């Protein structure tokens, strides 16, 4: 049942994405930046999805600490991994856009820097999980760390913005204007990315649960 739901979700997301992509290809190039401007249709929706993933991870972690139901732990790790993948997509698309527009792959722009810090934060969440053997302890410690990370996200975003506004910087939207009639495609892509993220999380969730079952069976086999 759950498998089917995942497939359906995945197919809907893919269909939406393909359909939207065909439309976006059909749109005229943006006046100042040319074709590369269209990367925004992906760059921003994946960022939204990644941010949502952080939030879901925090909620799942808190719920695990309260209920001790391992489903929430599995959800936390699944959604964090998917969120990291989306954040990586965000960083890569940003980098490609930067190369085309500014001529450089990376700049310590406010958004890039905060995205990178968040990426490193959540990557260390996964590393922490890997290094704790005992499942209950791993789940508790990871949940506490995830909550610490989530608290940091707004502080990081705010402080880096503050840090960078005191430096001359290429203004992100300079030369770019977003035509109003393009908006629906943008929001469709947000929806598609969210659905895709949800489908990936569900797949990863099942994987995580099987992993845990396997671990317990091994423990059982070796215990006595």
């Amino acid at each position: 049942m759950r498998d089917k739901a995942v497939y359906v979700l995945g197919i809907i997301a893919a269909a939406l994405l393909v359909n939207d992509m065909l439309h976006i290809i059909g749109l005229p190039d943006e006046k100042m930046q040319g074709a590369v401007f269209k990367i925004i249709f992906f760059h921003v929706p994946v960022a939204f999805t990644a941010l949502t993933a952080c939030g879901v991870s925090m909620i799942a972690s808190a719920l695990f600490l309260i209920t001790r139901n391992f489903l929430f732990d599995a959800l936390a790790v699944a959604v964090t991994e998917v969120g990291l993948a989306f954040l990586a997509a965000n960083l890569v698309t940003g980098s490609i856009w930067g190369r085309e527009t500014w001529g450089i792959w990376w700049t310590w722009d406010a958004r890039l820097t905060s995205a990178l810090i968040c990426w490193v934060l959540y990557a260390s969440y996964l590393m922490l999980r890997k290094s704790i053997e005992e499942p209950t302890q791993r789940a508790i410690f990871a949940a506490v760390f995830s909550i610490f990370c989530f608290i940091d996200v707004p502080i990081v975003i705010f402080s880096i913005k503050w840090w960078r506004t005191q430096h001359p910087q290429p203004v992100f939207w300079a030369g770019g204007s977003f035509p109003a009639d393009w908006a629906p495609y943008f929001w469709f892509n947000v929806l598609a990315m969210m659905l895709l993220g949800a489908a990936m999380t569900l797949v990863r969730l099942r994987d995580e649960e099987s992993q845990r079952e396997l671990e317990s069976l091994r423990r059982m086999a070796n215990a006595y």
Partner: protein
Amino acid sequence: MSAVAVEGVWKFYGDFPALRDIHLEAAAGSCLALIGRNGAGKTTLLRTIAGFSRPMRGKIRILGNEPRDLEARRRLGFIGHGISVYDELSAMENLTLYARLYGLREPRKSAMTWLERTGLDRVRDGLVREFSRGMRQRLAVARAFLHDPQVLLLDEPFTALDDRAIALLQDLLRDALRAGKTVVMSTHQLREALDLATHVALLVRGKIGFLGERTAEMLEDPGFVYARYGEA
């Protein structure tokens, strides 16, 4: 009211049930010996009763309180696998530290009393790092008894002890039982433990295989419970 009550406790490592539906009671003045093979869940059970980790399901009461309740902590003494005293501090400093944490009114005096009772008063200012193994173990015993606990939880208390420490601990436990205190200990040293025990619980794969009074035949043949109720 029983001093230690365990009602339907389950404990999991991931999905693996380390403790399954444990029911236990120990009345004041009784000594319960927990026996079982390695990995049967003795340490897990004892640590859960002591409040080092929470049970997934079920309830534990120490003198009517939750194990994490400060009132329960104050009346609980625990000896685990480690001696829980600091190598860099002296015997006296270690005991006064714990006396202060337990809120004893005269920390130094209580510490001194227990140093004398464990025969460590001569080396009170020596660093634990420099102590012999037997002395360290006696200090661990002093640490656990320092705050005059009503309930004593001991995890394999006799395993690492030398003769003198075993004799000391047995005397202290006898005194404690006579004074109406409660002892729960896990052990492999059946002879030493059964000698003190009034009750015996056998853990088999995280479940209680046997729970009852210690009988005379157990003393004669310490393997009796295993043979009768354990797995082959």
